[in-house]
């Protein structure tokens, strides 16, 4: 009896400590939102604030009115993330269907060749892509960054794994009835893939929203930048005094990912950890 109640107290104590730790983990985000509402003049006033005192949008308006083409940059980010997400959902699902359901010569070796791609970091592909883009006029154009991520080995792998866990009786029956492969894919396989596709869509969107290395190399002029690179530039551009403005811009930049996370928390956690586990 006594050990049981002691165990319960230990339990509570650990959770209490973890709650405090959890709040500490969130401090940088609380600070960033809180600062974005502070008047520029008070930006460096101590103590720093972690909870907003008001919801004054002056800094937000100032960002939009500044010389930096913030809306243009935001639009670049949205455009690239949407293009890549849609592109991957299409190309990865098509390929996964073939790898999981169809039989053709060389299938397994082709799949293996695609899997090898999981091992190569962006650092080893970026130089030829840069040279190729410089040649073809794709350099410094947002669509160039989108183009290189229209498919992914991980996406093909993820959807294929999911498809293999689904029964294929319906597809076989449809085939017997003389339905073509495209019809089977669209009518029968695709509707079953909803969970896998929403996971892939969410991971791809956040990943693309966050690209820095590739974006920094391929998109140099301000008008072609994406948010992660632009934020770094803004910090220097707006100078030390305008901390509040930088944080207002930052709040807008992190908003889509935070919203996705608040709404679809479980899906995001599962999706992102899945993308880590790969094979």
């Amino acid at each position: 009896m006594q050990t049981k109640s002691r165990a319960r107290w230990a339990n509570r104590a650990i959770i209490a400590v973890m709650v405090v730790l959890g709040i500490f983990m969130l401090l940088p985000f609380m600070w960033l939102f809180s600062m974005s509402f502070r008047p520029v003049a008070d930006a460096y006033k101590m103590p720093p604030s972690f909870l907003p005192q008001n919801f004054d949008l002056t800094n937000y308006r100032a960002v939009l009115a500044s010389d930096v083409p913030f809306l243009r940059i935001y639009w670049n980010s949205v455009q690239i993330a949407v293009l890549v997400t849609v592109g991957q959902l299409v190309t990865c699902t098509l390929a996964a269907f073939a790898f999981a359901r169809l039989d053709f010569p060389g299938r397994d070796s082709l799949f293996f060749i695609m899997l090898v791609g999981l091992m190569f970091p962006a650092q080893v592909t970026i130089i030829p892509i840069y040279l190729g883009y410089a040649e073809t006029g794709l350099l410094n154009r947002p669509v160039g960054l989108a183009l290189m991520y229209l498919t992914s080995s991980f996406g093909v792998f993820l959807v294929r794994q999911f498809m293999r866990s689904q029964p294929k009786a319906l597809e076989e029956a449809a085939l017997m009835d003389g339905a073509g492969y495209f019809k089977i894919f669209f009518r029968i396989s695709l509707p079953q893939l909803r969970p896998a596709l929403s996971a892939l869509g969410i991971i791809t969107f956040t990943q693309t929203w966050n690209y820095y290395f590739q974006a920094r190399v391929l998109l140099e002029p301000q008008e072609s930048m994406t948010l992660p690179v632009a934020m770094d530039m803004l910090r220097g551009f707006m100078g030390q005094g305008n901390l509040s403005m930088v944080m207002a811009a930052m709040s807008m930049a992190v908003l889509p990912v935070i919203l996705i996370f608040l709404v679809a928390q479980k899906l995001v956690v599962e999706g992102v950890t899945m993308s880590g586990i790969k094979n």
Partner: protein
Amino acid sequence: MTIFAANSPVATRAVADRPSELKRAQARAGYLFILPSFVLYLIFVLAPVIVTFLLSFTYYDPIEGATFVGLDNFRRFLTDDRSLQIFWNTLRFAFFAVSFNVGVGLALALALNRAMPSWLLYFFRLAFFLPVIIAAAFVSIVWSYFYGDELGVINYYLIQLGLTPVRWLTSSKTAMMSIIIMDVWKNTGFFMIIFIAALQGVPKTIMDAATMDGASYWRRFTKIILPWISPVIFFNIVYASIGALQVFESIVILTAGGPGDSTRSMSILIVEEAFGSFEIGYAASIAVVLTLVILLLTSLQLLGSRRWVSY
């Protein structure tokens, strides 16, 4: 397809023709379905990797093109003091970032792997996973203000507590440590989640039996939990290493590689050499070295996943 084994000569012919025709149709469909993915993969992954490997053996002039120089680029990388320091920086960063990310992640997982109301679960997932999914480029900027010398948030509180302020990013002694601290804050939640999943697989019956027999928590941890999750620990170490070796934006934003070269990483050197000095061949050779280290780790993972498991 061979269920309708031939009874009459007519049936035999019809059945014999259909499978091969079906097979051909299926193969056609198969190639068509993988075509977009495979072509994009060839253009944007496989071909660039091969070209980078080839470039690493050349001196590349933007106007005159590439001239073969054998292993010169690699020799330069492995004999130059500066590049060796940067190589060493990268390994050092990876070693500490991986140890703490995985170690802290495991500790957090052990602390959180217990029954709790769902709103608490939501809070913990939010608190520990939010840093994982927000771009390093964004959070590094926030941390750069936290780490400020005079106006920094952390130093303000250190002074309030009567402690000496720390030159987080402006001293070559502490800069790397500061970057590692931020990296652990950002990434440890990822490893925590994977460890929680693994801990939930530890059979309850064995744990209960050990508790009944009066085994201390430490004994249960070392004798049951640790062996059970060892493959996951191994996976996390390899996965964390692959990510840490590529470290780029957190350093670019926090210290830009400084003070001096004290925090410069291989990824930064690649970008500087390739697109700053236009030393394409040399940059390619550094990228190849980085890739080889990563490939080595990945193959270790494949080999180890069979051997390391010890139940």
